[in-house]
């Protein structure tokens, strides 16, 4: 179908004010937060309600037009780059919080609500929306569900998948389904909700999301410990967890990240340290006092510890957490290109893995800054390089292949929380196996027989 036909038909379906196809708009939607992936869509449409979404998807189905649902476009796996042209469906106009039920501890939202907006609203009811990806200021709940976004509280509280109770979604045929609901317990039928969480827009488009909320903890406390290197920090993490503490947050940064973050946030961090461990907990005041001081003690007595400080107040702790969330973009200060990875490994091999990553950087003459969710064994080694240096780009490719081999060697995963998207699709089969890969393809066909939903990603 020609582009002008596409635009005319979509306009007839949902009205011209939400359909755009000028060169400027198309260019703006040609990428997401993933470097090195670009593709121009043919048309942008921004539906206002479920009905419009269903109509648009039905149209895409009937005309076999690729369609990508997009939230804030802050994903890091090239899940929303329109590599096959087609329609980009921006969900940002569907940004209403439809309901907050304090007694049921749930909220019902449209997909375009940002993570932070929801959390700020439910805070007034003494509640919290727990998943907190680094991009929470900007990322939408729809996008969070599509990638099962993680964050800084994964160890104690889990990730997005643990907080999605029900979905209204549009299948690849344009049919509207409802899965799950408002209940804690509900085992009627296959758990389609859980299947759709993390499906990266390949199985259905979310139009309404019912999320579980949690009571807002009465207190929280955070501290930082400095170490000679990342491996020493990783060893301390292992000691903390085996001591029987399950804290909300155990995050670490190596020296490269530490310097970049300090340059942005000016918190007075010790930039001479080889690594920083950010630890903290939330809950009732007495028990977190105990768990945090215990963590501080363990860190202090760990090999290679250079010192421990506790955040003076909530504001100082928030500043620390915010700075940690900004690790990746802060690294962009160092060079013209940052390539970020997202591997996950069992916690007990993490010290060894971070040493191996450092070795890979040295071997290829590359600067790699590693930060991550130490408590979850989820590492973000980030190669910072000069994009105009063919030598560095070639070295980075080799280094990346070696970094991807690490989780497979240690029983880990090629992606902990960012998703597969286009960036990691080629490694997926090695991770999940041939039979499972075939099953994923079969599942895709059931939800999206025409293969129009975000084609070229997970199951297609």
């Amino acid at each position: 179908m020609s582009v002008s036909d596409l635009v005319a038909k979509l306009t007839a379906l949902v009205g011209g004010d939400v359909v755009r196809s000028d060169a400027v708009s198309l260019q703006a939607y040609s990428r997401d937060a993933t470097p090195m992936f670009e593709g121009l869509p043919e048309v942008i449409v921004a539906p206002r309600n479920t009905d419009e979404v269903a109509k648009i998807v039905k149209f895409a189905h009937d005309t076999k037009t690729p369609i990508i649902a997009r939230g804030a476009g802050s994903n890091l796996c090239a899940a929303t780059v329109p590599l096959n042209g087609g329609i980009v469906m921006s969900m940002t106009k569907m940004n209403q919080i439809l309901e907050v039920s304090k007694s049921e501890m749930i909220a019902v939202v449209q997909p375009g609500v940002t993570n932070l907006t929801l959390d700020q609203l439910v805070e007034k009811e003494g509640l919290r929306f727990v998943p907190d990806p680094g991009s929470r200021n900007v990322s939408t709940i729809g996008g969070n569900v599509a990638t099962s976004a993680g964050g800084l509280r994964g160890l104690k509280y889990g990730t997005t998948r643990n907080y999605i109770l029900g979905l209204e979604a549009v299948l690849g045929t344009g049919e509207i389904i409802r899965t799950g609901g408002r209940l804690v317990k509900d085992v009627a039928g296959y758990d389609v909700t859980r299947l759709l969480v993390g499906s990266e827009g390949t199985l259905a488009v979310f139009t309404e999301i019912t999320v579980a909320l949690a009571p807002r903890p009465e207190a929280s406390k955070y501290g930082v410990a400095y170490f000679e290197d990342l491996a020493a920090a990783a060893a301390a993490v292992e000691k903390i967890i085996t001591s029987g503490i399950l804290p909300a947050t155990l995050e670490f940064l190596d020296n490269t990240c530490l310097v970049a973050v300090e340059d942005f946030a000016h918190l007075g961090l010790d930039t001479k340290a080889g690594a920083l461990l950010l630890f903290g907990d939330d809950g009732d005041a007495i028990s977190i006092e105990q768990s945090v001081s215990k963590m501080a003690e363990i860190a202090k007595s760990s090999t290679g510890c250079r010192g421990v400080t506790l955040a003076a107040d909530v504001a100082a702790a928030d500043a620390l957490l915010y700075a940690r969330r900004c690790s990746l973009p802060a690294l962009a200060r160092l060079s013209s290109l940052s390539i970020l990875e997202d591997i996950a490994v069992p916690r007990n091999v993490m010290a060894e893995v971070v040493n191996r990553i450092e070795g890979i950087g040295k071997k290829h003459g590359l600067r790699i800054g590693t930060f991550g969710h130490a408590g979850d064994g989820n590492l973000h080694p980030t190669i910072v390089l000069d994009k105009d240096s063919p030598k560095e780009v070639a070295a980075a490719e080799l280094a990346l292949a070696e970094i991807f081999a690490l989780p497979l060697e240690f029983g880990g995963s090629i992606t902990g929380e960012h998703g597969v998207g286009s960036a990691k699709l080629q490694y997926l089969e090695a991770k999940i196996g041939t039979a499972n890969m075939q099953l994923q393809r079969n599942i895709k066909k059931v939800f999206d027989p025409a293969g129009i939903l975000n084609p070229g990603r997970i199951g297609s």
Partner: protein
Amino acid sequence: MREKFSQDKLDRCISCGYCLPACPTYKLTGNEESSPRGRITLMRAVQNDKLPAIDLLQESSFCLGCRACEPVCPAGVEFGVLLEEMREITWQGKNRPLIVRGLFFIVDSKIGMWTLGLFSPMAKRRSAQSDLHLMYGCFERRLFPSVSRAVAKLAPEVSCSSKQGCCGALHAHNGELEKGKELARQLGEKLPGTILTTAGGCAAHLSSVIGSDRVQEFSQWWVKREIELKPISKKDRKIRVGLQDSCHLRHGMGVFAEPREILKQLGDYVEIPSAADCCGAAGSYALLQKKNSRKVVSQKISEIKALNLDYIATVNPGCTRQLVTELRRARVKTKVIHLAELVAISQK
């Protein structure tokens, strides 16, 4: 061929999108091309010849240039500079808005500047002992002459020289980047020593060209004097006063604590929820993009109305003009006043 944009500044952006919630035009539209990240994607496309430069015209005009995206950017992207480059590319020839041409025409000529000052009851010329020079501003001297008068009264040590033109902020923000820098340098030569300005926008532009050590915005300068201020009373109670930040003063220079510190001495300070957000004046924006400018300010006007303030203090003439106009339109009685004038009232 010369690069259209500073490549190193474009490279800083990694498209993380952390700027989106801070952007007033993204808030209005939800459209990627109307966000800082989207606009940088467009600049890159122009830089790499994927888009003709003229395609940037609409977004370079729609952007307020408030720079609220800068302090929230962990990568340190200097969006203000990139926007200036964007306008330099697009606002040329017939694409330069007529109003902008008119403004340039006035401030670029000696007669124009002379006319702006003509019969204006601004601070009288005088030369004092110190090397501190009060800057009259270009349109500020015409529209709000009482501001320079207030400063002159507060500080006998300040020199007021008539030999001063525009600082060039107007040019830099409206597509004449080099001229803007040149004017700033000229002003720096005409007023040797430290330049004291009552306009946040001018302060940010001037200090980016001649160095922040040579420029003092009024609130920055006043807090260093450590003079205790008497609260201002109205009907036997302290006044209720709010503040409208100047975008470039706050986001460009990091000055926002100082005016608040002063206002807390002058009365019951009330932080309006959107104090740090652009009021839509944005230099020439209120003239060029009337409708969008009013959309941007509307929430703020309701907030000011609901808070029942006696005064809303400003630190930049554009904001004063915008708030005076819009509050009058909404029939809100809150009086808009420059911070320096409020300080002068308390010193009476």
